[in-house]
């Protein structure tokens, strides 16, 4: 099967891109790295009538990593490789670099973008869990140049479905900065094959006070459900707790309860996914905790 014929546009600016989106309506599709859209088109699962290519927009208007007082700002066209290797991201949101590293292979990472990945909203997309875990915000712009901010939690609606409107373009992902001490995070991924998608991806974010007592502990899972599974219970349960092995076992039990209706495919059954959600949630928590306790080190 081959692609259906389509018109191709290469806008030079963001506003030109969103005007095109508006003009062509539901048949139009933005293309970033093409690493999800093109496979879908080749399989006949997507047949856009207009393709609007974002790669000709002036580079630093969508592909960048910036810092201000409170946040880390990542342009939507930043590639997985850039996320993996950016010193600012490594310093201020290590979990995202760690996540980028686990995606596919070098070729895909050199083309695929963080924005494309989240807009595609594949339940097994690796960024989904960590972005929810670090309370990221998504900024979108519409043809009227109106900017809307959506929390990661609200952004991922369902399988391949986000809160973006049809004429909106994702411009930026913002992650709140956190002190580099006594914060730890980790992303651990259970792949079905090297370079493959996640059966389960678990993101954990932990903060401890100076006595090692937990202020905050959160686990979010990719791959197990139609949208990221955010395990809120952990946040409630563990605030003020000393996170020892017993508490981590308890976290596992909470995760098991939180996973409803896990996905099932030829690589992993629903039961196995639920079980692995527990295993990898605990691994992520342990790792995040260990990192949070390495005081002074930049391990968040």
């Amino acid at each position: 099967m081959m692609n259906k014929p389509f018109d191709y546009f290469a806008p030079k600016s963001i506003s030109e891109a969103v005007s095109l989106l508006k003009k062509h309506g539901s048949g139009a599709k933005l293309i970033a790295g093409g690493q999800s859209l093109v496979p879908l088109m080749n399989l006949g699962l997507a047949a856009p009538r207009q393709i609007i290519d974002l790669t000709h927009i002036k580079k630093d208007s969508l592909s960048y990593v910036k810092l201000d007082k409170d946040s880390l700002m990542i342009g939507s066209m930043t590639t997985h490789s850039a996320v993996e290797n950016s010193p600012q991201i490594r310093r201020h949101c290590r979990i995202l670099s760690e996540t980028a590293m686990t995606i596919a292979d070098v070729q895909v990472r050199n083309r695929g973008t963080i924005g494309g990945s989240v807009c595609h909203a594949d339940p097994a997309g690796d960024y989904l869990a960590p972005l929810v875990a670090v309370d990221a915000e998504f900024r979108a712009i519409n043809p009227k140049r109106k900017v809307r901010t959506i929390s990661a939690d609200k952004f991922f609606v369902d399988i391949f479905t986000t809160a973006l409107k049809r004429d909106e373009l994702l411009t930026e992902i913002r992650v709140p900065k956190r002190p580099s001490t006594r914060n730890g995070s980790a992303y651990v991924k259970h792949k079905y094959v090297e370079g493959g998608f996640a059966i389960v991806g678990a993101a954990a974010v932990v903060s401890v006070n100076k006595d090692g007592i937990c202020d905050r502990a959160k686990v979010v899972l990719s791959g197990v459900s139609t949208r990221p599974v955010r395990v809120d219970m952990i946040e409630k349960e563990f605030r003020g707790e000393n996170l020892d092995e017993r508490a981590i076992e308890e976290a596992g039990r909470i995760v098991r309860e939180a996973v409803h209706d896990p996905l099932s495919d030829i690589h992993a059954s629903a039961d196995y996914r639920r079980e692995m959600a527990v295993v990898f949630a605990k691994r992520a928590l342990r790792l995040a905790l260990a990192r949070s306790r390495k005081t002074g080190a930049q391990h968040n």
Partner: protein
Amino acid sequence: MSAVQVAVTRKQLVGTSQKRMEDPKFVSGSGRYIDDIKLPGMLYAAFVRSPHAHARVLKIDASKALKQPGVKAVLTNDELKGIKNMPTVEDEPETVATPRPVLASKEVNYAGEAVALLLAESKYAAEDALELVEVEYEPLDPVHDLEAAMKAESAKVHDYAPSNLSYHFVYENGDVEGAFRQADEVVKVDLVNQRIHPLPLEPRGVIASYDSGNDLLTIWLSTQDPHGMRNSIADVLNVPAAKVRLIAPDVGGGFGCKGSMYPEDVAVSYASMHVGRPVKWVESRRENLLTTIHGRGQKQHAELAVRRDGRILGLKIKIVSDAGAYTTGLNVEIPKLTYKMGTGVYDIGAYMAEIFSIFTNEVPQEAYRGAGRPEAAYLIERSMNIVARKLRLDPVKIRQVNFIAKDKFPFRTPSGYTYDSGDYHGNLQKALEVSSYERLKAEQREARELGRLVGIGLVTWVEVCGFAPGFGQTAAITVTKTGDVIITAGGHPHGQGHATPLAQIVADELGVDLSKITVVHGDTSMLPWSSVTAGSRSAPLTGSAVLLSARKVRDKMSKIAAHKLGLKDAKLAFEGGKIFPNGDGGKGLTFEKVADLAYDGEKIPPGMEPTLFEYTAFSPANYTFPFGTHIAMVEVEKETGVVKILKYFATDDCGKLINPMVVEGQVHGGVVQGIGQAMIEEIVYDDNGQLLTSTLADYVIPSAESLVEIVWNRTETPTYANPLGVKGIGEAGTIAATPVIVNAVEDALSPYDVTVERMPLRSDYVRSLIKGSG
């Protein structure tokens, strides 16, 4: 014969590792595959394929497609005038023949089966117009599950056949009943050898170009068997083979699946004759997974009559083989090979086998690297481990107790083969040494004490290759007037690296440098005949045909040189590009000089024909039976069921070696494919016969990241079956690696006392075994 004798005195290249001559071209992207070939005026074909696994074809309407710009023609089977059906079995009363038109005309029997060919000016135009060909289908019940297909109430794939049984054979050798009566115990084993895909990197492809002036059809085909395909395509097209020339350019992998003729090959050839223009078709990856043959696909059962000391007195096996939608020649033969190699390296006197071959609405199954022998090795080698565990014997011990002893070769097996040569004890001993087996066991004990699930797997494999007495291989050698050497080799490489070992053989015989030698192959106009590259035939058969041709050339050149030098009774040496009497310190004549003389009828001995061209069709004295021992160490992560391979040792015996580096490369590639079957590969159809693994995201294969170092060693037990003493090594890895990994995992899981019945060893499945719900 003349009194002139020759002797090779210099250092031999045969037996040494030489870098492959063809690699610079492949690694620099200068190979020339089907899709690299473009002919003037070429049209592009695309195929309308059935979306149903099983359906009646009621109507095909191409009128809309034909109105599309660039579309030249749409051909259905009705328009393929005067051609025959695809081959099936003939005159085999025990087997159901399945008449199969080139393009499905009345019924489709698997999802993806071609029903029409569309021709257009560009590939895009062809693909775009495909969906405008309207085909009306009446869906029928698909047959999918092997067990269900065997039941009387099952839907049938072919309504003209009495059932879904393609054939049923029973073989019995020796006193099977007696053996089972004497047994201390009978061990029963049930295994599934799953359907997998050969998956060459280059998919299938064909270009046909008909020259009406000369009434000559030239076909470029990505194939393992140029002459065989020339003959088959000519036969189905009903044209004389003399009017068809077939050329195989570089072939990017075959692994068995390019040893057969496919409907597309015939349809594209017909189309070119029909429109009088060249026509090209290259398979997409999706078509490749959907329509290129699959392999393995057997349900296996074994019963072993065992004595308490581990001696196997008798073996009964039952194989239920998934034929797929049609009876092809090969899907009849391959399960029989499983039967024939079923007793492996063991001296088992009483042997019974029952084979059922079952039709399903899936792609026909044929040869995948090893073709029948990996399935045999899997069944017997898994069974030996299961018996060893039952009897609390070490896997080494049970093998030693049952091996065919060294002094029993040539050894006649109960299934009728004569194993040429073997030293199974010696090879196993070497494998134990190079793997430090005792140390591995100590490491395993330590790991177990720490609660880790570490396992060791062992397999002692044997296979049959070098097919076959009466079915040989050809080669010719030309020495040009300028003294260049051309080897025209039968068969056709699809990655193996034929050129270098063949050149090594000739370099030794003729005393010339490798750089003087050119190897060509893959064009039916070059040789009167050649046969398929498969079954590890090329070293034993093509190699021998090359050797014998080289000897003929040397003999003739000796006589010419002796004539020129005025010698009557001399031993001539061929060395360093010179031909000279032994002991004259290399004076004599240059190789070029003698070549030049050979083309002048007045300068050669009276009665001799001028020119230097020698041809040999070599038919071996016997099959060859290479063997070996593979040992793997794995670790299973208890919490997740993830299997990690820690160590891998392959110790193989393929007789004499021509080029150890090429041999080792063959083992590496084979082991990786074998690990693929054990760990991750599986063709999955749903209950409606729809292929779920139709992309490489779902049909996953091993990559470098998931592998370990393969430590390769060898023993050398020559064969008498050919003058080189070589046995063939193309399939060893795929045969040994699959059971060795599964044996190792089963050993790792021994605290849970489970049997691994299925593959691949997805973490999900392994975890279910640990939990006891598998």
